[in-house]
C-alpha cells in the first residue's frame, strides 16, 4: 500500500509537468502582445524603446526556455510571478477571489449530493416505473440546460417575484453568513443542477449494478427487509463510483463557474480566467490552469486512495 501510494504520487509529477509545458508554450503562441495591448491599447503613440523596456522588465525578451525555467523555478518555491496586467502578485489576485469561487463550488456540491442520493436511489428501486422515468428525464435535462442560461432564468424569476437583482458587491461568509448565503445560493443552484444530474445518474446505475450481486440475493433470501437490503447492502457498496463522480465534478466545477460567474456578476476565479485570457496575461493564465490541474490530479489521487481504503478487495501492488 505504501509502495503504491509513493508510486502514485511520483506518477503525478510527469502529468503536472506536461500540463505546465503545454500551457506555457501554448500561451507563447498566442497572437498579440500584452505589452503593446497595455501601452498602445487605447491607440496611444508610445515610442518603441518604452515598449522594449517594459518587455525587458517583464522578462519577455529572454529566450523561451529561459523564461520557462525561471517560471518553473518560481513555482517550485511557491512564487507564481507578477500579473502582467495588474502588476500585483498572481497569488494575491487568485487568493482574493478564491474564497468566493470555492464557496459556490462547495455549496453546489452539497446541493448536488442532497438531491442526487435520494433521487438516484429511488430511480433505481423503482426501475422502469413512472417514478424512474420522471427522475431520468429530469436528470437528462440537467445535462442539457446550460448553467449560464439557468442562472439568467433564476435572476429573471427572482426579479419578477421578489424584486431581487444580483448584488454588486459580495459579503464574506465570516462577516454576515445569512446575507452571504442569500447571495450565493442562486449561482450554486445554477451550477448545481447539472452536477446533481450527473451524480443522480451515477447513483442509479451504480445501485442497479450492485443489486444484481450475489450478496444481495443472499440478504434477501435470509429474509432481511427490502429497505435494509437497499440501505445496508446496496447503497453502501454502490457509493464508490458516486464518490468518484462527485470528486471529479468538483474539480471541473471551476470550469463551470467560468461562465456562470459572468451571469451573476461574481468576481471569482472563473471571471479572472476569462479576463486574463482576453488580455493575454500569461502569468495569470498559467497559474490558474496549473491550479485547476493540480486540484483535478489531487482529487483523482485522493479518490484512488479512498478506493483502496474503503474496499478491502482492492489491493495494489
Amino acid at each position: 500500500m505504501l509502495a503504491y501510494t509513493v508510486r502514485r504520487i511520483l506518477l503525478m509529477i510527469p502529468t503536472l509537468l506536461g500540463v505546465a509545458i503545454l500551457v506555457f508554450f501554448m500561451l507563447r503562441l498566442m497572437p498579440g502582445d500584452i505589452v503593446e495591448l497595455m501601452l498602445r491599447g487605447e491607440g496611444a503613440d508610445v515610442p518603441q524603446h518604452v515598449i522594449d523596456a517594459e518587455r525587458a522588465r517583464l522578462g519577455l525578451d529572454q529566450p523561451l526556455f529561459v523564461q520557462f525555467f525561471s517560471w518553473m523555478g518560481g513555482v517550485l518555491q511557491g512564487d507564481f510571478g507578477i500579473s502582467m496586467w495588474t502588476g500585483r502578485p498572481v497569488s494575491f489576485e487568485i487568493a482574493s477571489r478564491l474564497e468566493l469561487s470555492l464557496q459556490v463550488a462547495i455549496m453546489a456540491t452539497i446541493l448536488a449530493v442532497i438531491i442526487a442520493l435520494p433521487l438516484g436511489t429511488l430511480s433505481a428501486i423503482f426501475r422502469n416505473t413512472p417514478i424512474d422515468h420522471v427522475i431520468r428525464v429530469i436528470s437528462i435535462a440537467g445535462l442539457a440546460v446550460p448553467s449560464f442560461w439557468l442562472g439568467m432564468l433564476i435572476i429573471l424569476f427572482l426579479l419578477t417575484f421578489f424584486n431581487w437583482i444580483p448584488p454588486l458587491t459580495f459579503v464574506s461568509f465570516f462577516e454576515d453568513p445569512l446575507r452571504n448565503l442569500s447571495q450565493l445560493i442562486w449561482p450554486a443552484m445554477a451550477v448545481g443542477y447539472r452536477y446533481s444530474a450527473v451524480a443522480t445518474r451515477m447513483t442509479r446505475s451504480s445501485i442497479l449494478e450492485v443489486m444484481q450481486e450475489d450478496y444481495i440475493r443472499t440478504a434477501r433470501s435470509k429474509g432481511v427487509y427490502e429497505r435494509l437490503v437497499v440501505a445496508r447492502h446496496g447503497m453502501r457498496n454502490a457509493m464508490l463510483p458516486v464518490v468518484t463522480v462527485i470528486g471529479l465534478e468538483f474539480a471541473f466545477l471551476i470550469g463551470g463557474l467560468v461562465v456562470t460567474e459572468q451571469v451573476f456578476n461574481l468576481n471569482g476565479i472563473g471571471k479572472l480566467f476569462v479576463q486574463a485570457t482576453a488580455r493575454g496575461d500569461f502569468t495569470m493564465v498559467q497559474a490558474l490552469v496549473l491550479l485547476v490541474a493540480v486540484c483535478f490530479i489531487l482529487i483523482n489521487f485522493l479518490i484512488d486512495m479512498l478506493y483502496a481504503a474503503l474496499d478491502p478487495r482492492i489491493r495494489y501492488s
Partner: protein
Amino acid sequence: MATTTETAPKVTYRVPKKRHPVLAFALTQPLGTAGLLFIVVMILSAVFADVVAPYDPLQVNYMAIMVPPSLEHPFGTDNFGRDLFSRVIYGARTALAIGFISSLVGCSIGAVIGMISAYFGGIVDTLIQRFMDVLLSFPIIVLALAVVAVLGKNIVLGVDVNLIIAIGLPIIPKVARVVRSSTLAIRELPYIDAARAAGFSHRRIVMRHILPNVTAPYLIMLTAFVAQAILLEASLSFLGLGVTEPTAAWGLMLSGSAADFYLEAPWMIIFPGLAISLAVFAFNLFGDSLRDWLDPKMKM
C-alpha cells in the same frame, strides 16, 4: 366402414418476426425515438431554414424593437428588431454544423489514437496515455478557451475551423480512453493472432479486424459528444469567443445586448436558451438509448 381421408394435422410454427432495426429500436426505446425525431426535425429545419424562417435572420427593423411574442413574431424580436424565431431556426444551422463536425473530428482522432495506443502497446501506449492524462486534467471549457485564444479565427467555407479544433480537442482523450480499452480486449482474440500469422500488415489488421469491432462505442460516443459540442459552442459564443455577430448562434443570442435587456424583454433569452437545452436534451436521450441498444455495458 367409412373411409376417412386422413389429413395431416396443421402445424404452425412461430418464427420470431425479424423486425427492421429502426422499428425494433423505436419499439423498445420510446425515449430515444422521441429524441431522434426531434433531431430529425431540427436537421430538416436547419437545412431548409430559408423556407422555414419567416424573416431574414439578419434583417434589422427599427420599427419593431423588442416586440413581445405575437402572431407576426412568434418568439418576439430583439433590440435590433430582428425576428427571434428566424434567428433560432438559423441558429440550429450553426449549432448542428459545429456540433456534428467537432464531434466527428474529435471522435475520429480519438478513436485512431486509442486503437494505435492499444494495438502497439509498450512505450507508444505509455507516452500516448500520459499525454491524454495531461489533456484530461484541463476542464473542457478552460482547454477550449485556451485554444480559441491561441489560434484566433480561421473561417473556411463559413465555418470557423479553429473553433472546431477547440471544441473537438477535449473530446479526443475521452474517446481515446474508451476505444483503447475496447481494443485491448479485442487484441487478445484468436482471429487477431490468425491475421498476424497470415502476415497481414498492421494497417490492415487495425482497419479490417479491429476497427469494425469498435464501431458500436464509436457511434455511441459520436452522438453523445454532439450534445457536449453544442453546449460548449454555446458557452464559448456566450463568452464572446465562439461564433461572432451577426451570425445567428444560440449562445451568442444570450450574450451581449440580450444580457443587458433580458430583464425587460425575457423572450430574448428564453427561446434561444430553450433551443440549446432541447437540442442537447434530444441528443442525450438518443445517445443514452443508443447505448442501451448497442452496448449496455459500456462506460463513458
